[in-house]
């Protein structure tokens, strides 16, 4: 089950990379992720939330001890 769980996360990551690459090539009727960022980040509340989430990711993995190493 460990492997299945990890593979699902990996698959999500692969899909994200594929979306990014596909968008850059304007393939499959998609547009670039940058264009999406531009549209979404034009909105202040969205910008605040997304930047806050980005900052929290850094804090979570680099500063906070969120995983018990002995657990």
């Amino acid at each position, binding site marked *: 089950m460990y492997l299945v769980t990890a593979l699902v996360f990996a698959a999500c990551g692969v899909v994200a990379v594929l979306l990014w690459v596909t968008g850059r090539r304007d393939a499959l009727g998609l*547009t670039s992720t940058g264009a999406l960022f531009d549209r979404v980040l*034009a909105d202040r509340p969205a910008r605040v939330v997304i*930047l806050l989430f980005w900052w929290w990711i850094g804090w979570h993995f680099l500063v906070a001890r969120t995983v018990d190493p002995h657990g």
Partner: protein
Amino acid sequence: LSNICQIAYPYSYDMSPAIDLRLLRYFIAVAEEGHLTRAAERIGTQQPPLSQQIRVLERELGVTLFNRLPRGMELTDSGAALLVDALGIVPDAPRFGRPATLPTIAAAVVVGVVLVLAPRHGVVDGIVLAGLGVAVIPFAWGGVRPGSGGRRTVDPRALRRTAIAWAVTGVVTCAWELTSWLLGRVLSAEQARQHPAISDLLDPAIDQLWFRAVFVAAWLALGLALITRGRRA
């Protein structure tokens, strides 16, 4: 202006394809500056005629593009939607979301090196992250600065499909993460290890210097992209 006329944004329903590009240039200037006087100075005109031209554009489109506030002009949703397309239509429209400047990139590299080499969970990391948090506040809050991908016209339908694709991916990831996290709390410790959350998977890897370097580089690159997109550089 075929893209504008085809999309489902509110401003486009009754939009004439014969709209004057000059009006779009004026609109872009006001949207960027957020202030009529500054926009008028920028395009070399006076405030009253510029204000009049913006009203003409609003009349032609049948929507309100700006909220007139004491501190300046704030884009409405319709205005933001128009701006995204206007920047792609007007040939010499200034590009929002320019690449990060050299000093910004240099600062990001220094921060990255510190975050990689400093002891994880240490005071230095804490200070750097706190500093970064303060540093991005102006970027997050700073004015209403809608942006566009630059000179290239973005097909709104493709944009919507892209948004849906990313949203679905994000929701699936979050649902799987939530499931794993919940299982980790209701199952016994031994069983919970079979359902690792993202943190459980990444945490040991980030302890490795090389992976921490990759993580920090990706995280900072994303941050740079976020602060240089969707807003005026």
